């Protein structure tokens, strides 16, 4: 304690730093931080705005496609864009609703709906009595036919309408019944049901999403390694991050695989919106580090690829 050297060293604690110097350093630091933040933020904001615009266009595309002239006659001569069906066990409700927005609505293959077109061409308008209608079976299919001009036709297809084996179609909006005579109906019925195997349309498109996911994971890994970033920012406990990651990957893969047959667009849009909000929230919390900046842009590109994928699929 009495060592004069140690005493002298202890006295060095009294080193003064002027208030002005301290404030000046803070001002310079603040300026530097703002410049650094702005330099990185504009790129990200621009890119993110791009994603939101794409999402908006995608929604517009869907909304426009949903416009339907409900009371129009079935314009058989016009080309059908797509036919979706959903199995229903009630004749009083049309559960198919909007073909692209409800879970479990399936899309008929091109071959199948061409057959359906032929089938519809043979229709005869009938006006069944109340008692006849009551006798109709509940086992139906709700069909939504979308024509290339965007309008949709809702048709309830009752296979076992009468014991004679005739096919009964009900224009749901106009409440007009069409009947397909027995001799044709039997054949058509078999043919249409033979197309069940066509209902599942396999395509290589999901591989694109899979490729994008793998690429994103790989690039994230490389960026994190390059800048020695932690695996996840310290915003959530590790387990919750893992849960979020697994759920998001599952949802995207599930959507990609099932997009052509059961359509999940109804909850696909909210999921993409939630993904965007979630990304934006995370990115706001992150520091403007170059590595994180690259990760953010990568995420934007990732979201953009997914949205583009959906646009291409819906447009095709």
């Amino acid at each position, binding site marked *: 304690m009495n060592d004069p050297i*140690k005493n002298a060293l202890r006295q060095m604690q009294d080193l003064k730093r002027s208030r002005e110097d*301290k404030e000046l350093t803070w001002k310079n*630091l603040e300026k530097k*931080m703002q410049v*650094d933040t702005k330099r990185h933020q504009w790129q990200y904001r621009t890119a993110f705005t791009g994603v939101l615009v794409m999402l908006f266009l995608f929604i517009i595309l869907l909304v426009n496609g949903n416009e339907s002239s409900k009371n129009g006659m079935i314009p058989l001569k016009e080309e059908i864009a797509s036919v979706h069906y959903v199995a229903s066990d009630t004749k009083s409700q049309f559960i198919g609703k909007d073909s692209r927005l409800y879970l479990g609505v399936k899309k008929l293959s091109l071959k199948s709906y061409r057959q359906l077109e032929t089938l519809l061409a043979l229709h005869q308008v009938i006006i069944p009595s109340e008692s006849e209608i009551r006798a109709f079976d509940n086992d139906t299919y709700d069909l939504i036919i979308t024509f290339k001009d965007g309008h949709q036709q809702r048709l309830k297809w009752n296979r076992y309408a009468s014991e004679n084996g005739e096919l009964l179609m009900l224009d749901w909006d106009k409440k007009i019944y069409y009947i397909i005579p027995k001799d044709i109906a039997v054949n058509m019925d078999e043919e249409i049901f033979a197309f069940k195997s066509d209902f599942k349309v396999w395509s290589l498109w999901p591989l694109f999403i899979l490729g994008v996911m793998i690429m994103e994971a790989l690039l994230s890994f490389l960026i994190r390694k390059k800048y*020695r970033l932690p695996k996840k920012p*310290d915003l959530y406990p590790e387990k919750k991050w893992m849960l979020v990651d697994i759920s998001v990957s599952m949802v995207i893969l599930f959507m990609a695989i099932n997009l052509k047959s059961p359509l999940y667009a109804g909850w696909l849009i909210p999921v993409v919106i939630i993904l965007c909000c979630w990304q934006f929230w995370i990115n706001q919390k*992150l*520091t403007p580090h170059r590595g994180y900046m690259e990760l953010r842009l990568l995420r934007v590109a990732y979201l953009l690829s997914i949205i583009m994928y959906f646009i291409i699929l819906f447009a095709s």
Partner: protein
Amino acid sequence: MLQQFQQDYEKHSDTIFKYIYYLVGNKELAEDLTQETFFKAYQYMHTYRKEANIVTWLRKIARNLVYDHFRRKRIFQFIPFFQKDCLQDEALLPEEFLLKGEIFLAVFQALFKIKLEYREAIILRYIEELSVKEVSDLLGWSEAKVKNNTTRGLRAVRKILGEEGICYE
């Protein structure tokens, strides 16, 4: 985030400044390096683990920056057109220390003449008054190395004082 960061700056920047100052011996340079330390802290905030002491983390950043500074200086020394005066960090005695006496002045000057490793150990042990364990955690040295460097540093200071004919006993 910025508000919290400003609070941290208000609270800890003096400590960091003092630490840097005794490593480089120049107030202006210490201010610059303090600014750089906090800028790096801001950029790398995501890597800061909350259970760790923030001052320890800031000191680590500051230390890396000081080492970078010395490394750069060493490179510049090999370049002939850099004047030697520009590269020398002469430890000017701060005004508040002018009246501290001969021994203080001699110790202050000697501190900047000893090896950086010794100086670091002395600064942290006697000026910052950290325990051996804290110094060892901060510098990544073993406790034995901290003790050794402190002892050797003090011995080196005593030797310089002796050579200069300063009577400190």
